[in-house]
């Protein structure tokens, strides 16, 4: 197994001068390639803060984070942007897509930023849209897509850059249950078939159920961690049995 995320003792405090909020406290986290991990916990427990730090969007006050062996807490701002582009795929809660671009153009954008060749981009875009089941919506603007479809395109975009892992902060929060299930189906399938690493936060019990590892945060600290559950057979059932 290859280590993708190795976070040591990270902490983040907001407003340290006035009323300090210890959003994340002394968190250790170790994520292997191919994991499908859910980050859960009550509102305000620090999920978003932790994910932002793991994704290199925010810096911890203490501790360090190794992604694929690189300490991202020591990178310059510009190097960090580049690192994100090459190593991390992002799916945000909503409004992931640029409204003036079609679905296809949104996915292409990230590969153009990576200076991929035209033929490679074309081929990969086709594959990605097949995987998310939206081949017929490639040339549609985000506004003409449903929320679930938009999130699927966001997954395709996150995947397009061939990242080390995909990070998703409440990707299903704005979706109806049917769309949420569909999105999870796609994510799980990508994880199983292509060994794509996912870490996502969620409040939704149905989503939690499908994770292969669940880390629970309470007050910025890891309250419990199921650890990687190896389910070569059927991981959904494994979780359900617990």
């Amino acid at each position, binding site marked *: 197994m290859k280590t993708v995320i190795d976070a040591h003792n990270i902490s983040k405090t907001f407003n340290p001068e006035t009323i300090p909020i210890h959003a994340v406290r002394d968190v250790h986290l170790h994520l292997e390639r191919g994991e499908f991990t859910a980050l859960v916990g009550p509102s305000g427990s620090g999920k978003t803060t932790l994910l932002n730090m793991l994704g290199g969007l925010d810096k911890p006050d203490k501790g360090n984070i190794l992604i694929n062996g690189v300490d991202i807490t020591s990178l310059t701002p510009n190097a960090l942007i580049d690192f994100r582009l090459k190593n991390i795929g992002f799916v945000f809660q909503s*409004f992931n897509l640029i409204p*003036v671009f079609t679905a296809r153009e949104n996915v292409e954008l990230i590969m153009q930023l990576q200076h991929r060749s035209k033929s490679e981009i074309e081929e990969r875009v086709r594959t990605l849209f097949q995987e998310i089941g939206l081949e017929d919506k490639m040339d549609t603007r985000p506004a003409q897509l449903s929320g679930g479809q938009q999130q699927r395109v966001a997954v395709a975009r996150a995947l397009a850059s061939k990242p080390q892992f995909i990070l998703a902060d409440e990707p299903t929060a704005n979706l109806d249950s049917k769309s949420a299930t569909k999105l999870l189906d796609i994510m799980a399938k990508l994880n199983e078939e292509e060994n794509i690493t996912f870490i996502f936060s969620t409040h939704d019990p149905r989503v939690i159920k499908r994770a292969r590892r669940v880390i629970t945060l309470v007050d910025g600290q890891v309250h419990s961690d199921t650890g990687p559950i190896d389910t070569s057979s059927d991981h959904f059932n494994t979780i359900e049995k617990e």
Partner: protein
Amino acid sequence: MWLLKLSWKNMWRNRNRTAITMTAVFFSVILSILTNSLQEGVFDNLIKNVVSFYSGYIQIHKTGYWDEQILDNTFENSQELQDQILQLENIDAVTPRLESFALASSDTLTKGCMVIGILPGKEDAITQLKNKVTEGNYLSDGDLGIMMGEGLARRLKLELKDSVVLIGQGYHGAMAVGKYPITGILSFGQPEMNDQSLYMTLANAQVLYSAENRLTSYVIGLENTNDLDPTAENIRSSLGDGYETMTWEEMMPEVVQHIRTDKGSMVIIQLVLYMLIAFGIFGTLLMMMVERKYEMGMLVAIGMKKFKLMQVMMLESLFTVLSGCILGILASIPIVVYLYKYPIRFKGQLAEVYEEFGFEAIFPTSTNPEIFLNQGILVLILGLILSLYPIVKIARINPVNAMKK
């Protein structure tokens, strides 16, 4: 290429905002072209009236004439001298004049006037005097009649075909007396000219003033009126000390002063205008940044370098401002041309003040293409400087904060 595409598409995403920015730029360009073209036009017109229709752009006199304008300060007319001037660069034409004061009398009234002896054909070529004839005919060579300004005619209560008696002092103190039929009435925009000028042929004037073959001045027509000073300098060094070469600016410093003062106050008006323009454009940029904050944060989050994002924004501003500028320039052309053909005319007190100073009370525009280009470029630069604001904002963007609802 995709950067260009993103900018282009962004420009059309919020058509209203783009339209507002473009409109702001559009009207800014029109306003600034119009004020400038009016300003230039007024001065051009002024110079044309005061300078071109009478003094010419450059005059050559006997040294000392300008300070003491008497017939004793005249010089001998000679074809060689004229040829010498004509072969210099930028000289279009030369016409001789003999000018002096005289008292003009009708049966009952006497008024002072300025007698100007001219070669009718050459004079017209330089000062378009023929265009000023409103009644009767323009002078011809060998004509025995005279033309006078309509103001002078009115003051003397004379009409076409009446006779006028001139009395004055001739060359070397000789007596100058003559009686002439009025064969033409002239109308000048400039009141002083209108009320005092009296034209006759050069030959008649030389006879009247007993100044055979003598002149007070050569009036010079230029090919390019912008090269005034170098041309005058050229003539000066060619003719030597016996002659004084003067530009209209030297002959009429008060006009130059007036233009300078007016231009000074125009600068303030223009500064205010540019400030309004700047606020207009800035407002729309502000709107845009608020609207796009989330998306920009998102793009930086997924790995778009800030520099790339700045390029997108810069291109977008360039498209918007440039289109506004071009449209503004295009739209201002017919307006300026219309106001050139049908100039704004002052009325009432303002007009009187102007006429008192000897200026024609109209506001024509200048159609000088440089104005369109300069003002267009100025607003473009203003727009581009202002679009540094989003650039600075992008440089400071923090994706986490930008994406917070």
